[in-house]
Structures are given as C-alpha cells and as structure tokens.
C-alpha cells in the first residue's frame, strides 16, 4: 500500500492510524515562524465513526488504507446477516448489524446504498440520502389539516420511526432524508 507524507494529506484520503482505517477530514499546516512545523489533522475512524484530532511532525507519513465506496443493492436480511450485491458483477457481500449500524433502519429490499469496503470486507453502510418508505402505523390525523404543525410519529416498513405531518395517513408512501431522519414529502405512487 502507498505511503503518504503529511504534505499529501488532504480531505478524503484514506490512511491507517492505530491499526484502524481512517479518512482525513482536514489537514492544517501549523508552524511558528521560528519553530518546528506540525500538521494538525482532523481524522475520522471509519470503523467507529469517531472524529479525532491528531498532530504530526511535518514530513511524517502514514500507510494508505485500502478503503473504497461501492454502490450496491440491498438484497435481504436473513435474521443474522444483511446481504448486498454489486449490480454490475453480481458479487455479493454480507454484514452483521454491527457494521450496518444506524443505516439499517433505512434499508429496504432492492434499494441502492453505498457499502464501504476495507480490504474487500464491509466496513460501513450508508443509505441513499433520500429513501421512499411506506407508513405501516400512525394515528389517524385530522382530516383537512394541511398545516403540518406539530406532527405525529409514524412507523415505516423498515422499522424506522419519523415525525410526519398530521394529514399523512397510514399506508402512504413518503420521502425521508436519511441524513437528518426527517420527513420530506409524500410520494405519489
């Protein structure tokens, strides 16, 4: 794997730090006019998602991490594993809930998502920014109320619960922003 010096650190670069794959978020060159040069780096641990700050002496280097994002279709959940497939190659991957994490509540069979692979093994799953899911359970709203103020909880077919406006009914299909977990709109089927 390639070796990267602090001069090459830039947002998005994947490197190994403390034996974990990480992505560089920000790299700042810090140098007192008459002193030692450092690089203060903001870095995300791709296993845990945690963001940490770490300082390097300028010129130090890190080993690159073999991390790639691959578009895959989510196939199904067999009870202990989730299964994904790369559409072009039919290559399949399976992961447990630990890797899927929070993304699990937005994954519907047949939907596309991004699977991050580290040394060809799933490291993380990111759902599409917007997903369309149907409401399996919500209180009947007040008919004619289109204000949207307040809202009510609605359970979706993936198990996620989001707040929806009062006029939205059980059985309807809605669009949700997975980054915020917020209702966006109703979807006409």
């Amino acid at each position, binding site marked *: 794997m390639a070796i990267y010096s602090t001069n090459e650190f830039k947002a998005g670069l994947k490197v190994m730090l403390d034996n974990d794959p990480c992505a560089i978020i920000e790299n*700042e060159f*810090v140098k*007192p006019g008459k*002193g*030692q040069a450092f690089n*203060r780096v903001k870095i995300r641990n791709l296993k845990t998602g945690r963001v940490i700050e770490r300082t390097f002496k300028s010129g130090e280097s890190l080993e690159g991490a073999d991390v790639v994002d691959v578009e895959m279709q989510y196939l199904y959940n067999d009870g202990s594993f989730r299964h994904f497939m790369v559409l072009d190659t039919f290559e399949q991957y399976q992961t447990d809930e630990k890797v899927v994490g929070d993304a699990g509540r937005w994954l519907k069979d047949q939907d596309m998502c991004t699977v991050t692979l580290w040394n060809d093994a799933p490291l993380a799953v990111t759902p599409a920014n917007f997903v369309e899911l149907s409401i399996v359970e919500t209180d009947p709203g007040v008919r004619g109320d289109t204000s949207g103020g307040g809202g009510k909880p609605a359970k979706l077919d993936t198990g996620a619960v989001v707040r929806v406006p009062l006029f939205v009914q059980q059985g309807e299909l809605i669009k949700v922003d997975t980054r915020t977990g917020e209702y966006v709109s109703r979807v006409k089927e």
Partner: protein
Amino acid sequence: MQVDWQPDCSIEHLRLRAQTLANIRRFFANRSVIEVETPLLGQSIGTDPQLEFFTTQYFLPPSQQNLFLQTSPEFAMKRLLAAGSGSIYQICKSFRNGEVGRFHNPEFTMLEWYRVGFDLRQLMDEIADLIGKLFAGKLSGDTESLSYQEVFLRFTGLDALDFHYENYCAYSMANNLPEAVSICGYDHATWLDFLFSHKVQPHLGAHNLSMVYGYPACQSSLARVNKYDARVVERVELFINGIELGNGYYELLNADEQSQRFDNEIAIRQQKNLPSVNKDWRLISALESGLPDCSGVAIGIDRLLMLLSNSSSIKEVLSFSVSRA
C-alpha cells in the same frame, strides 16, 4: 481545459493591500525611518534549522555558483545598520521552502524594521502604534504585553523556563495530546513549540494585539540574552486573533556569540541531515565592526491583510498563491 488564470484574491483586496502599504510608508516617513532595499538573491543564507530555503544556480560561464532566495532580509539590513544607515525599514518578499497552508505561502511579503537606540520595550510601543494606525479602531481590545512564562503558565499550568519532562508528558496525556510525547521526546524547544501552538497561541489576541516577550533561551534565535535572567531572551512575538503576526528582537550585538549560535545551528543541521550552509561571514564581520544598539521586528503583511479583511486563508489576500503562480 479550464485554466485557472484568475487571481486568488478579490480586486477589493488588491486595493486593501495598496492602501495598507501606503499607510505603512506614511507611518515610517513621519518618523524619519528610511526605506531600503536589499537583495532577495544572496550568496549566504541563515543557518536556522527550522527554515528551509530555496537554492538557485547563478551562471556566469565558466563559473557557476549557488545563490539563495532570502528567508528574511535580516542579515543584509544589519549590515546597513553597521554601516551607519540609522533606523531603516523594508517591505520585501521572503521565501521559505515547503511552507504552504491556510497561513503560509512559500513566497510572502514581509515588513521588517530596525530602530537604532531602541530597546525591546520602546520597539513594542512603536509596534502598538503602527498596528493601532493600520487597524484604525477595528480592534476592540487594548494592547496587552505578557511574558512567555506568564502566558504559558496561564494556559498550561507548566513552567516554560524550567523543563520537567514528566510534567510536560503528564500535561499532554491529560489534555488529549498523547502524540506530543513521541514527537517532542526530551527536546524542550520542540515541547514549547508544540504546546504553545496548540494550547496557548489560539487564545492570544482576541480582538486585540497581544505581545509575548521574554522567550526561553532555547528559542533565542538572534535575540540578546536578558541582562538579569539568563533563562530568557529579549524576543517578542505578536498575535492577533490567535494568529502569529510578527517576531522581534533586542538585537544581539556580540559577534562571537552570534558566530557561536551559527555554529550550533550548523551542527544541528548536520545531525538532522538538513542541507548544509556556511555561516554568513559578512554579517559576522559587520557585527565585529560594530552594530549600533538596536531593536528590530518583522511582520507578515499577508497575515496582516488576512486580519484586516477577515479572510480565513492567505490565498484570499494574495494575487496569485503558489498553486497558481
């Protein structure tokens, strides 16, 4: 193909630069400090192991010689002072290899001035006057002067003049900077650079000019040692909004001591496998012939413009940063 021919900075920032340079020249004209020019391309260069320089070839067939782009105009200006120039200032480009970032460009503009007969305190007063004029009410707070030891103690609880390895390690472990231990090792100066830039500097000069004086002797550079306390040197650094803006000294006059410091730095360069340099004998000779008692300071004009224009990157005040120069 899209060619990035356009300037990095706005036209408005070009005007701000022109206006600022005019204000600086007026300030010194009013005080009868004369403007000088010295070579950017020189036969010698500073020995400071922390400064990487650019080397270039001078061809005059059949001979060929290395010339260096100056990391600061300090040595040449001191030779003018020794020759009897009186107080002088210069606005010029300086070059430092490998320095690029939000606050760095390898080629940058420096204002450097020397006041004959001034001690550090008098120079600090003049710096405050100039900054006051240039910022014209944009800084809400009063200028403050703090000793290095005082400010280091305030933000880290550590004594900067008395290096206790265990205390420094314990502090960095407790403050989420465990990497400091391996980076700094037993080197007091590196510890000071690390902790000062991470834990002290960000707090300095919140909407005001903060001047830190009395640097530890291990960070002496070209400053003279304090008369009463050999642990500190007569050096001052300027900060506004956590940004290092300049560096000044009550200048070292002793040629032997200067020569000795050069030798030390040359030895460090050898240890670290850095490019070797010869000491500047013309500067040593000038000091031997007698540099008048003086203080001098260098201020980064680009950073000054960043502060004046609330820019977050040096690119926003440069016509063309190195990436499109």
